[in-house]
């Protein structure tokens, strides 16, 4: 059993737009995967379904064998406490310091203040922002703000780290730094799934790549490498 399994997952919105079509994919524990594809290909929807911010119209998403759509609303919070999420718009709280922003998930899980201090500083140290813990986010560059967002996502040591276009606003050098951070967390055993349209960047990373087009998987590098499936750039063949 894989840690994450998508079984024929489809998502159709009320306006009739089909964001995902019959997706079947599995993600092993500790793996690192890039989701790529054009704008509107379904990458964000894929991650939102995994975060239980939305529910699939058809199919099942299993995490550790549990259908996440069947987790009762009152227990979704405990599910999300095991996930880390990073977004292009990093959703930092402007009236709280860097330290307070990163400490937020730890306060939610009820850690003691002294443990919170240690964990927050460790996470900030990991993203290279320890010296800026007392600053408010508006005094940081976009790249630094994104790194604070990453520190907040990993500070609880999540089982799964999800990132939606985390390098969207960054220049190539900064983007590479951010991706290397994700690579580091993957090395620690966290399952990492990053949605990015920056194909040039992700092709340089040593990770599995799944390409989506119009809501369907058109390329899965793992399967492609093993020669089992797909013509690479056809964009028309579904798994």
């Amino acid at each position, binding site marked *: 059993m894989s840690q994450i399994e998508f079984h024929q997952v489809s998502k159709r919105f009320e306006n009739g737009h089909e964001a995902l079509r019959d997706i079947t994919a599995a993600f092993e524990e500790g793996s690192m995967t890039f989701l790529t594809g054009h704008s509107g290909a379904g990458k964000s929807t894929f991650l939102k379904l995994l975060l239980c911010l939305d529910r699939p119209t058809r199919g099942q998403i299993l995490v550790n064998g549990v259908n996440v759509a*069947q987790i009762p609303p009152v227990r979704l919070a405990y599910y999300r*406490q095991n996930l880390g999420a990073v977004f292009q718009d990093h959703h930092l709280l402007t009236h709280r310091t860097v330290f307070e922003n990163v400490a937020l998930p730890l306060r939610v899980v009820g850690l003691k203040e002294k443990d919170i201090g240690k964990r927050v500083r460790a996470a900030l140290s990991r993203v290279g922002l320890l010296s800026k813990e007392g600053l408010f986010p508006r005094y940081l560059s976009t790249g630094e703000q994104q790194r604070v967002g990453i520190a907040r996502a990993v500070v*609880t040591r999540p089982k799964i780290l999800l990132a939606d276009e985390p390098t969207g606003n960054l220049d190539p050098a900064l983007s590479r730094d951010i991706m290397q951070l994700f690579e580091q967390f993957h090395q620690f055993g966290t399952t990492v799934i990053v949605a990015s349209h920056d194909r040039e960047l992700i092709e340089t990373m040593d990770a599995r790549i799944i390409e989506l087009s119009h809501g369907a998987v058109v390329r899965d590098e793992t399967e492609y490498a093993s020669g089992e499936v797909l013509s690479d750039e056809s964009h028309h063949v579904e798994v």
Partner: protein
Amino acid sequence: MSKSRGSKSKLSRDPWPRNRSGLAAGGRDHLRVARETLHFVSARMGTSLLVWLLVGIALALPAGLFLLQVNLGAMTDAWDGRPGLSVYFQLDASDPAIQEVVETLRGDASVHGVTFISQAQALAEFQSYASLSDALELLDENPLPASARAVLAGGSGLADLQRLADMVTSAPGVAEVSVEKTWLERVTEITRVISRLGIMLGLLFGIGAVLVTATSVRLAIEARLEELRVLKLVGATDGQIRRPFLYFGVFYGLGGGLVAAMLISLSLLVVETPLTNLLGSYSQNLELAGFDPSFLGVLFAIGGVLGVLGALLAARARLGNLEIL
């Protein structure tokens, strides 16, 4: 056996074992949230003062009426005079008929005592007080009737008085029954009106206090919407998300209670002198009852409860369908 299977199946609906942070962590979170909320409330003192004043006025009016009712009740209880009725007999009423009426009154549980005044006693009393006593001597016979005055026992009310009057009016030998509705009975009726008015105003102003708090909490929720979305994203439970706003409700309610207590005590200061003079003219001392620590405790508790109700109302309306992103 079946119990353990049931709990296993329940657990298997979570992908990972739940993080059980325990009571201590819950207590820490409550303290932290209370501190942060207090800081938020004090940082927006203008808005907070306005809310406290509105909630305070809403609490002060019914609470003031309650105090008025308590004091009027105490005043009537302390009054020496008791209500009663006077029965005047026909001039030719026979002694046995008069005796029967007097005994009927004496035997009633609601009657404290009966004083019988014969025709001769009435005449003697009249002669000792009235300047027209000489004129009476010119008459052939005594024109004053025998009478009986019944005084009600404590705890008996106007209904008993009316029942006694109905009972003796049709008795043989009775010419007239006079029910003495003293001002105390009227005060009792006024107290009843005030009591009902207090209940109505309490309900209306209570709803007002809830709505004021709900609106203020709603504004606080809107101001922190982004934070709430992030909290939900990182796994905050619904209880954790609601918690700060319930504390808002508590602080607004308690602050309102404090303002209400201040308004009431200010009002008492203002009316103290004229009230003392008024009661002095009825040989009564001003002893205000009810405005004591237990009254203040109840006032604060009601304020707190109304605040929490308002906060719950706002949280339910705004956070129930909060979208994360």
